[in-house]
């Protein structure tokens, strides 16, 4: 028998220039379902005007990032029981630091453009992206095989970043992590972009990006590593070697 919980889903609503508000829906759910399943149920059976983004349902596409009870989550892999108790309220908001298009959908265009700008590669050789666990380390003959990059460009890290809240100019954790993945490698244009007020030095070490990242990217660590790369490149250029 399926264990059923009763929860209240409180969903952020905003259409066009209308002032935002919350709609609430009483739902019966299996607590082992995911938050995205509950949102889809509202759309399917209660309110067809609800707008939200999703695609793969297995944390690969990065489309369903939202704030669940004020914490950034990829809703397709967030079990309901991990964020609410039986009888509780599950609040769902769109991500911060991006313009809201409609309800739970935000415009991630600035993120995608910047990822392109820093040369982030969505696909790269196995040998270039360290394996998360030693057991998953590729065999030497597989190092040139291709894999998808860890970053799924969901935008959760930018939503969680307190610095990104105040300045749209800040490149943000995902983009800086993308630059680190690309590597400076004598790319002067990229060096100027990340070694700036809106680049690596804007980060104030709150580490929220790494805390919410659903995909093993660890943007904070990459930002710190990029700082070392920037300093190395500047020193090399000072001595005429860059």
């Amino acid at each position, binding site marked *: 028998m399926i264990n059923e919980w009763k929860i209240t889903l409180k969903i952020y609503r905003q259409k066009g220039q209308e002032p*935002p508000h919350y709609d609430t829906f009483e739902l019966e759910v299996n607590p082992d379902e995911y938050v995205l399943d509950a949102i889809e149920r509202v759309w399917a059976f209660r309110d067809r005007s609800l707008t939200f983004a999703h695609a793969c349902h297995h944390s690969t596409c990065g489309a369903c990032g939202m704030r669940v009870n004020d*914490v950034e989550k990829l809703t397709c892999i967030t079990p309901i029981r991990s964020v609410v108790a039986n009888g509780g309220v599950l609040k769902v908001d*769109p991500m911060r*630091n991006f313009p809201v298009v409609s309800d739970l959908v935000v415009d991630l265009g600035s993120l995608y453009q910047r990822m392109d700008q820093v040369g982030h590669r969505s696909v790269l050789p196995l040998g270039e992206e360290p394996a998360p666990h030693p057991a998953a380390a590729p065999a030497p003959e597989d190092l040139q095989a291709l894999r998808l990059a860890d970053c799924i460009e969901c935008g959760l890290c930018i939503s969680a970043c307190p610095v990104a*809240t*105040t300045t749209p100019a800040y490149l943000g954790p995902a983009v800086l992590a993308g630059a680190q993945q690309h590597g400076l490698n004598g790319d002067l244009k990229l060096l100027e972009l990340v070694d700036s007020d809106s680049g690596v030095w804007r980060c*104030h*070490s709150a580490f929220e990006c790494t*805390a919410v990242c659903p995909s093993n990217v660890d943007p904070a660590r990459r930002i710190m590593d990029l700082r070392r790369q920037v*300093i190395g490149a500047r020193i090399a250029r000072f001595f005429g070697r860059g």
Partner: protein
Amino acid sequence: MSNKPSPSNWPKWFDPRRREAGSWAFILNRLSALGLTFYLFLHLIVLGTLAQGEAAYDNFLETIHNPLFILGELVVIVGAVYHGLNGLRVGLTSFGIGVSVQKQLFYITLAITAVVAVFFAVRMFS
């Protein structure tokens, strides 16, 4: 549209709800920095009373010799210790040292600050 970044969102820096240890460190760092900056100006104003002569300065010292001002001095000491230690933490992690243990470094910072606070509180109020 809502949720866009804006300079007017800066009060959100100080909202610790649903935030991780790193954000608490960030918030405390900002608050202690603002407090120490405020104290620096206050300190300069106090030193300015010296220009009015020894009697004026002694008079001022007499005025501030009460538990409220001593508590203020304790807050300054605690703020300075926290800000300095967290500055070391941020300095190390900023260059890739100890990033994976940044939470533990924050807890150590808090623990040392607490010990210093108790030490000075006992000395200043006894």
